[in-house]
């Protein structure tokens, strides 16, 4: 699941210069996280109308990042044709897909934070950094690349105090990794000296 949060409304207004706006929500992660589903789209419509915008229509796509026919979307949402700009309440993936399909200016209403998940009712953030070389099993299923703010592969830094990370209030990821490996009976994995990561495996900015 992609973890996103809503931008501050004033930030959205600052970017949104156009008058006639069509709002697009997303039925997947943004709906589950209550940041871009139908109730949030309707709330956004209300706020934008109050701010003087003309909302020419809205929809919640089943998945903003997975659009098989833009023509179908246009046919089902004639409001898009009357709009000057689209406001997309999905992750950056959805915003980018829609930007690539639409001829109109597309604005994001959300900030995309991380690849996470939901465990029962808990939202889990920053579970994966999509590094392109998954070795999470060596760390008991707790990824230090995403869970440790320094992404340290060979153990903790000296910055934690009373088990808390130096960056914020989170528990030191390496204490969690140690406890997990201990309970799995796999402390031996922690003795491995890990080589630096191969960043060419992470295709960011490279043509794939």
């Amino acid at each position, binding site marked *: 699941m992609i973890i996103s949060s809503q931008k501050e409304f004033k930030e959205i207004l600052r970017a949104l210069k156009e008058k006639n706006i069509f709002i697009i929500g997303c039925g997947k992660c943004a709906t589950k996280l209550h940041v871009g589903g139908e109730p949030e789209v309707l709330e956004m419509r209300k706020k934008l109308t109050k701010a003087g915008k003309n909302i020419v229509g809205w929809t919640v796509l089943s998945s903003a990042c997975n659009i098989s026919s833009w023509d179908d979307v246009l046919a089902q949402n004639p409001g898009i044709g009357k709009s000057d700009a689209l406001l997309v309440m999905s992750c950056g993936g959805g915003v980018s897909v829609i930007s690539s399909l639409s001829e109109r200016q597309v604005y994001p209403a959300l900030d995309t934070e991380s690849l996470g998940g939901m465990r029962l009712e808990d939202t889990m953030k920053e579970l994966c950094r999509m590094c392109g070389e998954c070795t999470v099993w060596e760390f008991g299923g707790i990824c230090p690349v995403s869970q440790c*703010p*320094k*992404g340290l592969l060979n*153990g903790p*830094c000296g910055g934690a105090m009373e088990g808390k990370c130096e960056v914020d209030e989170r528990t030191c990821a390496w204490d969690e990794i140690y406890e997990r490996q201990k309970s799995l009976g796999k402390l031996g994995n922690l*003795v491995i000296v*890990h080589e*630096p990561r191969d960043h060419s495996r992470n295709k960011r900015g490279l043509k794939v």
Partner: protein
Amino acid sequence: MSFESKLDEGKFVVTAEISPPKGTDTSGLLKDASIINGFADAINITDNQRAVMRMSPVAACSILESKGYETIMHVTCRDRNRIALQSELLGAYALGIKNILVMSGDHPVKGDHQGAKPVYDLDSVQLLGLIQKLNSGFDFSGNRLDGKTNFCIGAVTNIELNEIALMKLEKKISQGVRFIQTQAVFDIEKFSGFLDRIKDSGISRSRIIAGIIPLKSEKNARFLNKNIAGIKVPEIVIDQLKNASNPETRGMEIAARLIKELHGMCGGVHIMPIGNHEKTKDILEMAGII
């Protein structure tokens, strides 16, 4: 005799920490170095410590080396990727810098440029491994160097370690570490416990250099306890400062007594004053080291 030779011969070494200037004026740096001239075996130069931006340690070390001081250059993993680290290390060696102290480095959010990109392309274990490689005449990718380095490399540690932190220290030691400088020591029993825990890690205690911070006041001690990871000034020491008519002098006495006790236990002491080195000589004299 060089810092490394003294370590090799088991002499009790004294190192002293100085921060490069926040700006281009090096007069404070040179003055602080001159105060400890003659009895500090090497001067540690910090690398933008606490993630507060300062002059490059390569430049500060090079300036001091050109004046005849031996330096230990701190290198953190925070700001440079493997290309920049190697490039800087080669430059440092060519400028006469022979000793390197490796650490992860405080996260940018701790400092005065909180929006800076945290790099950490390598961690401290990997950086130590990389320097070993440069010492053997090859770069990270295995290309042969035209002139290799011969760095004496050190690592840092807190003295109270949980199991995973101890495992990390053992990994560091496995990467060719010649010396270890510790976070400030205030409790000899805890330091002794630390030495016992690492006795089978492959580094002799004559290569462990214990950190010393001369305390200036009760407030100062409490600040360190609250804000600096790995530092625990015991309440009994804080009480001594609290009840002293001159807390700064008391702090110097406490530091001197610690140094006296550490002499014979480990390979040396590393003095990290709050402020400058004005009192460092007095403390070492009180400890009977010089």
